[in-house]
C-alpha cells in the first residue's frame, strides 16, 4: 500500500511538474507602450479593459502598459532596438515612421495583414493603410488614432468685432477680413502660425495640396511649388500684425482663447476638452469649423495619424494578435465614444453613434480636405534641417526680411540643399 501511495504520489508530482512547465512555456508578458495621455484617467481605464478582454481570451498572456511622452517613445524604441529589448507593441506618430523602420524597430506586418479576413482589412481608411506601406509587400503599421485640424472660433470675440458667426466662413479672404476686424476691436486674431512646422503646413493647405508639399526622394528635392509657397507666405505677411505671438501649441494660446483675448485657433481636436471645461466654468462661447481654403469648397488644415507598430522577435505572433485586436472596429468605436475623437478605423467612424458625435463629424469632414503633414511616410527620415528651413524662412518673410517671392525661392533652394546633404 505504501509502495502504491509512493507511485501515485510520484505520478501526481510528475504530472504537476509537467502541467507547470507547459503553463510556463505558454506564459508570455508583452510590453505595450502608449502615449502618456493614453495611460491616464479614462483612456487608461479603457486600455486596461481592452487588455483584460484580450488576456481573458489568451490565458498565459500578460500585458504591461507603459505611458511615455512623444520624444521618450521614439528614443526608447530606438534604444530598445539597439539593445535588443524592444517593447512588443507600441504607438508612435507617423512622422517618425521612417526613422523607426530604418532602425529595425518595426516588423513588416504585410503577410499577417494579408492573412486577415477581408472584412477586417476593409475597416481601415484606405489612404492611411497606404501611408503605412512605403512599397508593395511592406506594411509597417496599423493606423490608429489621428486628427484633422479644425478652426476653433471664440464667438464672444467675433460678436465683439461685429462679426456674425452664424454666417458660414467659406474662403481665406473672408477669414482674413474677419481677422482684421477682430484686431481692430483690440483683440488678437490668431496665434503666430509661423512658429511651428505643422501650423505652416495648415496654412499651405489653404492654397496648395499634398502633391506639392511632399518630397521627391529619388531626386532628393522638395516638391513645394514656389508660386504656391509665395502665395502662402503672403498670408503670413498679412497675419504678422494680427497674431498673438504665441504658437498654436502654447498653453498661453489656450489661455488667451479661454479669456476672450484670441478669436481663432487652428489646431487638432485635443484642445476641445479644455474648451468644454472653460465653457462650463467660465462661460466660454466657442465652436469649430473647417479651415477655409483660397476658394469656396477647398479646405486648409492637416491630417495626422498615430499608429500601432509591432516589434520583430519571439513574441511577434501574439503581439500582432493584440495589435490587430485593439485596432479593430469594436475597440475603435469605444475609443471614439470615450474621447469623442476621430480615428483611422473608417468602419468605426461610420458607426451611427460615433458619426453623431459633433467633434467626430467635423473631424471626418476636416480629414477629407486636409493635407498629410509630411508625406511620404516610412520611406526616408526627413532631416531636421528641412523642418527648420520651412519655419525659418516663413518667420523671416513674416518679419519682412524677404518678399514672399524671395522667401519662397530662398526656402526652396535651401530645402533642396538640405535634402542633397
Amino acid at each position, binding site marked *: 500500500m505504501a509502495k502504491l501511495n509512493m507511485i501515485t504520489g510520484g505520478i501526481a508530482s510528475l504530472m504537476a511538474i509537467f502541467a507547470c512547465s507547459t503553463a510556463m512555456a505558454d506564459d508570455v508578458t508583452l510590453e505595450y507602450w502608449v502615449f502618456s495621455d493614453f495611460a491616464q484617467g479614462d483612456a487608461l481605464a479603457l486600455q486596461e479593459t481592452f487588455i483584460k478582454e484580450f488576456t481573458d481570451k489568451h490565458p498565459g498572456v500578460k500585458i504591461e502598459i507603459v505611458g511615455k511622452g512623444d520624444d521618450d517613445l521614439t528614443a526608447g524604441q530606438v534604444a530598445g532596438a539597439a539593445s535588443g529589448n524592444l517593447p512588443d507593441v507600441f504607438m508612435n506618430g507617423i512622422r517618425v515612421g521612417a526613422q523607426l523602420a530604418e532602425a529595425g524597430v518595426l516588423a513588416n506586418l504585410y503577410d499577417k495583414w494579408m492573412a486577415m479576413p477581408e472584412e477586417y482589412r476593409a475597416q481601415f481608411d484606405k489612404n492611411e493603410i497606404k501611408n503605412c506601406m512605403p512599397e508593395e509587400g511592406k506594411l509597417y503599421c496599423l493606423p490608429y488614432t489621428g486628427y484633422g485640424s479644425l478652426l476653433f472660433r471664440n464667438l464672444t470675440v467675433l460678436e465683439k468685432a461685429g462679426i456674425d458667426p452664424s454666417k458660414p466662413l467659406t474662403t481665406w479672404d473672408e477669414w482674413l477680413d474677419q481677422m482684421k476686424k477682430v484686431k481692430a476691436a483690440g483683440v488678437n486674431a490668431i496665434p503666430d502660425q509661423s512658429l511651428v512646422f505643422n501650423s505652416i503646413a495648415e496654412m499651405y493647405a489653404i492654397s496648395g495640396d499634398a502633391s506639392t508639399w511632399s518630397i521627391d526622394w529619388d531626386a532628393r528635392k522638395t516638391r513645394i511649388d514656389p508660386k504656391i509657397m509665395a502665395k502662402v507666405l503672403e498670408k503670413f505677411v498679412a497675419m504678422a500684425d494680427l497674431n498673438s505671438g504665441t504658437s498654436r501649441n502654447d498653453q498661453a494660446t489656450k489661455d488667451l482663447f479661454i479669456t476672450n483675448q484670441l478669436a481663432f485657433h487652428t489646431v487638432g481636436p485635443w484642445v476641445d476638452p479644455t474648451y468644454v471645461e472653460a465653457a462650463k466654468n467660465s462661460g466660454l462661447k466657442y465652436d469649430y469649423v473647417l479651415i477655409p481654403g483660397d476658394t469656396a469648397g477647398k479646405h486648409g488644415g492637416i491630417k495626422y495619424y498615430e499608429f500601432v507598430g509591432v516589434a520583430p522577435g519571439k513574441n511577434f505572433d501574439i503581439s500582432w494578435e493584440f495589435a490587430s485586436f485593439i485596432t479593430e472596429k469594436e475597440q475603435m468605436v469605444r475609443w471614439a465614444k470615450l474621447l469623442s475623437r476621430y480615428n483611422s478605423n473608417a468602419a468605426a467612424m461610420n458607426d451611427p453613434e460615433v458619426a453623431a458625435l459633433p467633434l467626430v463629424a467635423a473631424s471626418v469632414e476636416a480629414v477629407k480636405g486636409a493635407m498629410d503633414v509630411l508625406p511620404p511616410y516610412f520611406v526616408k527620415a526627413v532631416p*531636421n534641417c528641412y523642418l527648420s528651413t520651412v519655419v525659418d524662412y516663413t518667420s523671416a518673410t513674416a*518679419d519682412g526680411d524677404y518678399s514672399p517671392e524671395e522667401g519662397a525661392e530662398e526656402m526652396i533652394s535651401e530645402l533642396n540643399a538640405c535634402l542633397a546633404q
Partner: protein
Amino acid sequence: MLLFVVFFLYPIISGLFYSFHDWNGVREPTFVGLSNYRWLISSRDFSRAMTNLCVYLLITVPIGIFAALGLALLVDSFTGRWANFFRNAYFLPVVLPAFLAATIWRWIYAPNFGLLNMILGWFGIPAVNFLNDTGTMMYALIAVDVWVSAGFNMVILLAGLKNIPTELYEAARLDGANKWQQIIHITLPMLGPVMFFVVTYSVISAMQVFDKPWLLTGSSFTEYGGRRGALLFPVMDMMGQAFGELKFGLASAYGFILTTAIVAVTAVMYLLGNRKETK
C-alpha cells in the same frame, strides 16, 4: 581607475570612434572618415548654434558671477536666522526641477497676460514677446539662467567669504578703508581660488546649456531652438541629430567637437590661473 575607464575614458573613445562612422544606433556602423565633421562645419544650424553659444557665454557667465558675488556679500552681511533664510531662498531655484522652473518663466514671459508684461503695462510700456521675439529671446534665457545658477555659485562664494580672516577687515578698517575698498583689496584677492572654480564651472555649464532653452522654446527632437533658431545651442542640435534623425555618428562628432572645446577652454583657464598664482 576602473570607474575612470568605464565612465570617462570609454565614452570619449567610443564617441570618437563613432564620429568617423555613419551609424543609426542599431545597424553596423560604416566608416565615413571625416565627412561627419565636414558636414557639421558646413551646416547652417551648427554655425548658428556656435554663434549663439559664444554670445550666451560672453553675457551669462560675467552676469551670473556678478549676481552670485553680490548675493554672497549680501547674505554674508546677515547673521543668524536671516542669513539662513536668504541663503535658502536664493538656493531654491537650484533645487527646482528644470521643467518647473521653465513653466514658471514661460508664464512670467507670456505675451499679453504674463507677469512681466503686466508690470510693463503699468508703466505704459507695450507688451514684449520675450520668448518669440528674436531680439529678446537670448536675454530672456540669460535671465532664467542667472536666476538658477546664482544660488549655486553664491553658496560656493559664501564658503570662500567665510574663510577670509576677519582680522584683515579689522586692519583695513583701522587704516580707514571703506566697504568698497575692502571688497576690492581684500575680498576679491582672497576669493581668487574659489572664484577660479566658480568661473570654470560656470563656463563649462554654459557650454553645455540644454534644458532651459529646450523647455523655454517647447522644443522636441525634430523642432528645436525657437523662432529662427535664436535659442539653438550645440547640445540641442546634437540631441536632434541623434534622436530626431538617428544620426548617432554625426551627433558623436558634434559631441567630440564640444568636448574638445570645453577641454581647451578649461585648459586655457587653468594655465592662466596657474600663471597668476606663480606671479
